[in-house]
C-alpha cells in the first residue's frame, strides 16, 4: 500500500497540513516539517513558492514572497523533500503549487526529480483535467499521484472528468474563492462530501478556510481528511524561525480534535 493510502487507512481521519517551502528561509523548513509530524499531521503538503500565486489569499501570498525573497530555488525544495523522506520514511509528502515552476524543465524531469526525492503526490492548482497531458502522464509514469481538486462549482456532469486519472486523494476546495479567507457552511460541506464519496473510492479531504479544532472536528466527522494551510502559515509568519514549537502545539490541537471526531461517531 502506498504511503498516501496508508495514511488515509488509519483509525482516524487524516490531518493534512500545508506550509510553504523556504518560508521564512530554506534552512528553517525541515524543523517546521518535523514540527508538523510531531504534532500529529498525517500528510504533509509542501508548497512550491511562485511569484504569481493567483489562487492564494494574503497569508500564503506573503509566504511565497518571503520564500522567494530568501532565494528559495527548485533545487532547495527537492533537497527539503529528500531530507524529509530520510527522516520520516512513512509520512506521505505532497508538493503543491503552480504549473510554471513544475513544468520549467519539462514534466519528465520534474516527475523523475520528485521520484528521486521520495515525493508521493502533486497538487497543481492550474493544471485542470483538460490540460492533464501537460503533467499527468509524466507523474503517473513515475508513480507519483496527481491529486485533483473538486470545488463547489464542480457539478455532477463534470465530476467524472475530474476523477478520471486522479489518485492519492480527492481535495475538496470547500469555498469558491482563494485560500485562507472564508469558511464554508458545514451543511454545504456535508452535502458535497457525500456527493463526492458516492462518486469515488478515493479518500476525500476538505480544505480552504479551516482554522479551529472545532471546524476540523466538524469536517472530520464526515470526510476522510482535513486540510489546514493558511492558519499554519500565519503562525510561521508570526514566529519566524522559532515557529516549530508553536506549530507543534497548534497541530496537536487539530490532531486531537480530528481523532476524537471519529470516536464520537464510531
Amino acid at each position, binding site marked *: 500500500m502506498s504511503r498516501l493510502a496508508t495514511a488515509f487507512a488509519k483509525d482516524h481521519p487524516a490531518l493534512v497540513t500545508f506550509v510553504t517551502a523556504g518560508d521564512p528561509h530554506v534552512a528553517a523548513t525541515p524543523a517546521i516539517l518535523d514540527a508538523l509530524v510531531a504534532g500529529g499531521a498525517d500528510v504533509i503538503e509542501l508548497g512550491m513558492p511562485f511569484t*504569481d500565486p*493567483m*489562487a*492564494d489569499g494574503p497569508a500564503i501570498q506573503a509566504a511565497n514572497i518571503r520564500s522567494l525573497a530568501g532565494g528559495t530555488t*527548485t533545487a532547495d525544495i527537492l533537497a527539503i523533500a529528500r531530507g524529509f523522506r530520510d527522516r520520516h520514511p512513512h509520512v506521505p509528502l505532497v508538493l503543491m503549487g503552480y504549473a*510554471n515552476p513544475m513544468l520549467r524543465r519539462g514534466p519528465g524531469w520534474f516527475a523523475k526529480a520528485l521520484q528521486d526525492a521520495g515525493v508521493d503526490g502533486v497538487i497543481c492548482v*492550474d493544471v485542470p483535467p483538460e490540460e492533464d497531458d*501537460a503533467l499527468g502522464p509524466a507523474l503517473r509514469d513515475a508513480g507519483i499521484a496527481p491529486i485533483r481538486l473538486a*470545488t463547489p462549482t464542480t457539478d455532477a456532469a463534470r465530476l467524472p472528468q475530474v476523477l478520471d486519472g486522479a489518485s492519492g486523494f480527492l481535495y475538496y476546495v470547500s469555498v*469558491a474563492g482563494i485560500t485562507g479567507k472564508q469558511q464554508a457552511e458545514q451543511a454545504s460541506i456535508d452535502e458535497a462530501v457525500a456527493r463526492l464519496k458516492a462518486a469515488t473510492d478515493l479518500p476525500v479531504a476538505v480544505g480552504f478556510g479551516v482554522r479551529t479544532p472545532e471546524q476540523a472536528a466538524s469536517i472530520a466527522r464526515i470526510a476522510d481528511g482535513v486540510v489546514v494551510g493558511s492558519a499554519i502559515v500565519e503562525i510561521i509568519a508570526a514566529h519566524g524561525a522559532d515557529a516549530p514549537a508553536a506549530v507543534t502545539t497548534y497541530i496537536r490541537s487539530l490532531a486531537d480534535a480530528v481523532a476524537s471526531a471519529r470516536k464520537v461517531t464510531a
Partner: protein
Amino acid sequence: MNAPNSFRAQPDDRGHFGDYGGRYVAETLMPLVLDLEREYRAAQADPAFKAQFDDLLEHYVGRPSPLYYAERLTEALRESAPDGMGAEIWFKRDELNHTGAHKINNCIGQILLAMRMGKTRIIAETGAGQHGVATATVCARFGLPCTIFMGAKDVERQAPNVFRMKLLGAEVRAVSSGAATLKDAMNEALRDWVANVHDTFYIIGTAAGPHPYPELVRDFQSVIGREARAQMMSRTARLPDLLVAAIGGGSNAIGLFHPFLDDADVAMLGVEAAGEGLEAKHAASLAGGFPGVLHGNKTYLLQDDDGQITEAHSISAGLDYPGIGPEHAWLKDIGRVEYTSVTDTEALDAFQLLCRTEGIIPALEPAHAIAAVTKRAREMKRDQVILANLCGRGDKDIFTVAEALGVAI
C-alpha cells in the same frame, strides 16, 4: 470554411494554438470558462449578436476607423533611404476610436457576452489604464457595476486614467501585492473572479488568458484587419506588402494580422518592447522569454531558470507585461509572422517623428510599431506598401514623454 492548411483555423477545440494557449485555470473557474465558450459559440451563430456589435462599433465607437496615407512621414524616410527605396507608409487609425485606442472594440464584444450570460458585475485588470477606461466606459454605457484592478505603482503613475475610470463610475482597486504592476493586477482580478464566479464576468484586455479569451478577443479585434483589408483594396486595389503592429499582450496586432494570415504575399512584423535593451530590463517575451504557463495559458514568458516570473519593463505601460498572447507564440514558432523589438529610446524618437511629420501624437505603444516602420521602410522599394496599426493616441503619455525628454510641464 478555412482551407485545411489555413493559418486562420486556430485554435483547436481545446483552445490550443499548436503547443500554446489552453485552459490552465483553477478548478473553480473551469466550469465558468466552459460556459463562456458555449455562450460565445451561441453568440457567433446569432445574427442579432453580430448586428448589435456592429451597430455599437459604428455609432458608439466611431468605426470604421480611417485608413490614412502618411505622405510626409513617407517622404521624410525616403530622404535618408538609398535610391529607389522608401516604402509608402499607411496607418490604420484606431487611435480615433472612442476612448482613444483599439481596446474598446474588445470591451464592446465582451460586455455583450457578459449580458448574454446574465452576469451582473464586471471586473477587469489594467496596466496603463487604457483597458480600464474602455471597460469602465462600456460598463457605464450598459449600467453594470465595474471594479478595475490596477497595480498600486500604476495607480500612482497613471493618475489621469484613474480619475477617468472613477468619473465613469468604476471602482478602482489598487493592488499592492507582488510588484504592484499589471501582472499583479491580473492575479488579483483572478482572485476576485474565483470568489465571485456566480455573478461576475472578467473582461480580459488582451488576446491572452484561458481559452476562449485569446480567440474571442482576436475575433472582436479582427474588425481592424477586416476594415483595413477592404479599405486598402478599395483605395489602392492591392494588398499591403508588410503589416506592422506593436505587441504587449498582442490584441491590436492579432486584430490587424488575422484577416491577412492566408494572404501569402503579405508579410507581418510584430514589435515587442525592448525597454532598456534585450540585455537589460525589457518586456520582449518572444525575444527574451521561454514557453511556460501563466494566467490561464501556455505561452512565451519572461522567467528565470526555476520558472519564477520576472518583471517586465517598458516606457510604455501598455507593453509592460511578462507574457504574450498564445497565438503570437504559435505564429512565431511556425514563422508566419516575424517578431522584432524596439527600445524605449527608439520609441521616443518615433513618437516625436510622427508628431512633427504627420500632426499625430501617437501612444507610446504604436510608437514602437512606428520605430520599426522607420527601419523597414528604408529597406523596401518605393512602390511597396507598409500598413501599420496606430492603435492608440498619445494624450495619456505626454507626462511620461515629457519626463523622458527632461521637460517639466
